[in-house]
């Protein structure tokens, strides 16, 4: 079961920040600076954490994982609201290019 996870980070070093940004991009949608909306299974979340653990500095950097709800229940729309520019979560049923 996949759930929405809001991933945000604060990285104190440019080089590490770059690497963290690249990793998290592969796991979700870039919503704002240092904020990503990801659709993760338990396994994806574990993988992402393992990848980040290899990069970040244990005492100087921070990555927050906030679980928002299951993807099926349209939790992103219900549990999150935004004003200003709108955002649309990725729909895996419509990857037609």
């Amino acid at each position, binding site marked *: 079961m996949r759930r929405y996870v809001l991933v945000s980070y604060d990285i104190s070093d440019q080089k590490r920040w770059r690497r963290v940004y690249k990793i998290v*991009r592969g796991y979700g949608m870039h919503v704002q600076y240092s904020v990503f909306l990801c659709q993760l299974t*338990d396994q994806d979340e*574990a993988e992402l954490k*393992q990848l980040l653990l290899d990069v970040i500095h244990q005492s100087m950097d921070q990555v927050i994982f906030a679980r928002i709800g299951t993807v099926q229940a349209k939790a992103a729309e219900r549990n999150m609201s935004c004003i200003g520019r709108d955002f649309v979560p*990725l729909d895996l049923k*419509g990857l*037609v*290019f």
Partner: protein
Amino acid sequence: MQGLFEKSADTVEGSGQHDRAERRKRPSDVGHDVWDIAPQSLHLGDEDLGIVGKLDAIRYQDDGYWEPVEAKHSSAPNGGTSFRLGEWELDGKAWPNDQIQLCAQGLLLRANGFPTIAGKLFYRGNRQTVRIVFSDDLIAATVATIRRAHELEQASMPSPLLNSDKCFRCSLNGVCLPDETIRLTSPDGETVPIRDIVPSRDDLGTVYVSEPGTRVGKRGYELTITSKDGMESTVPLKDVRHISLFGNVQISTQLVHDCMESGVTISYLTAAGRLVGMNHNLISKNVLVRREQFKRFGDERDRLTLARYIVRAKILNQRTLLRRNAHGLDKVILKDLLDHARRSEEATSIDSLLGIEGIAAKQYMQAFVLMLKVKGVPAGETLMNGRNRRPPKDPVNALLSLGYSLLQRDMYAALAAVGLDPLMGFYHRIETGRPSLVLDMMEPFRAIIADSVVVRTLNTGEIAWDDFYIGQESCSLKLPGRKRFFQAFERRMHETVTHPVFGYKLSYRRMLELEARFLSRYLMGELPEYRPIVTR
């Protein structure tokens, strides 16, 4: 068992911790003066014991002994009473299986000339370190366990656990299918409750690329799709299950490598939608299944039994679609189809099955047009006149052909993932370059997946008459219409239905996977029979 392995959140975390523990070791630590300081990680093996092992860490003690150290994710037991294992008594401060693993490491060390009398277990759960002395009982238990493991290695697949809570966290549950297998194999199977162990859909996305001149590649952990005018879209690679390329589309080798490693299949289709070929990783991994497949399909009786069920399921599913959607349908047709289905069960040869299937298909295709309510058909044009192909001559046939190609692609991927040979079938004649098994296995799904998408897209007006090129002798779908059809097909594959036998909900794409798995289990002799799905 059989070298099968699936990842789960727990295994990912575990191997991540191992990797990091291993990388912390500096080259200099191991390079010089190796035997003065303890190495961080060690591969050892011994012929007499018949085992090899990877020791996370060993430590040198002042008293001249070496101690293996093993880290565990869980918590240590409270240590009050000792454990009884068969005739042996083991220390109560650590779980018996952990002690045995540690002791096996100790025996390996001894066999390789390192004196050792005890080892340490570190439980991450409650951050406790437990020292275990290798007692005579523990050594006897370990030797017995190693012997038992060798016996199991030679044995066939064990039957699944009954009603065990362990199934929920086991990473192999999607392969083992514990409750489903028990229901299908035990004599009073009907009464076995089915728990929702395997998620109803772990469906990932299928990427369709059909715009000519588009390039597909990767950057980091992302899939990038760059169109001719330089516009770029990205999709996380972890969300992709399959990539379909239509016509003149480029794909990078780096991406192909990544896909093959993670089990993502790639299909190549012509711009018109004919399946040309597939990329999948080396399917020889589960070669035992293929060996059985070739054996079983050489047996006339096995082939006929399977073919009967396939044809029966196909006809019944066609009947269901008509019953649900056709307006003003002559009831005789429904009765006829039911008769054909019954006769197919008693068919004595593949040839007579082909005859029955042909008659049923003809009746079904003639009634197909009754399910359609298309507006805007110009006067004098035909919407559909029976089934025709190569090339399709009317819009409905064009859509059916495209739908069947997509279904063929999905079935191919499902069969190849299980380790079956897609070209060796039991019902369709075996010809070079023809994926017979794929054609066999997709028969029951033609109506419930492809035909139903065609009916729906036409009836809702999602695809209209203007979306087609109508030629003298052929008919094809324009690009914008094709994209909408792909989307409709994907929606159908993600839709969930109640499984008629097991009673839980699952998506159509998972259903294909489940069928492929059951066929392979039947071929391996683990299930008494294989019956394809029949919807109500």
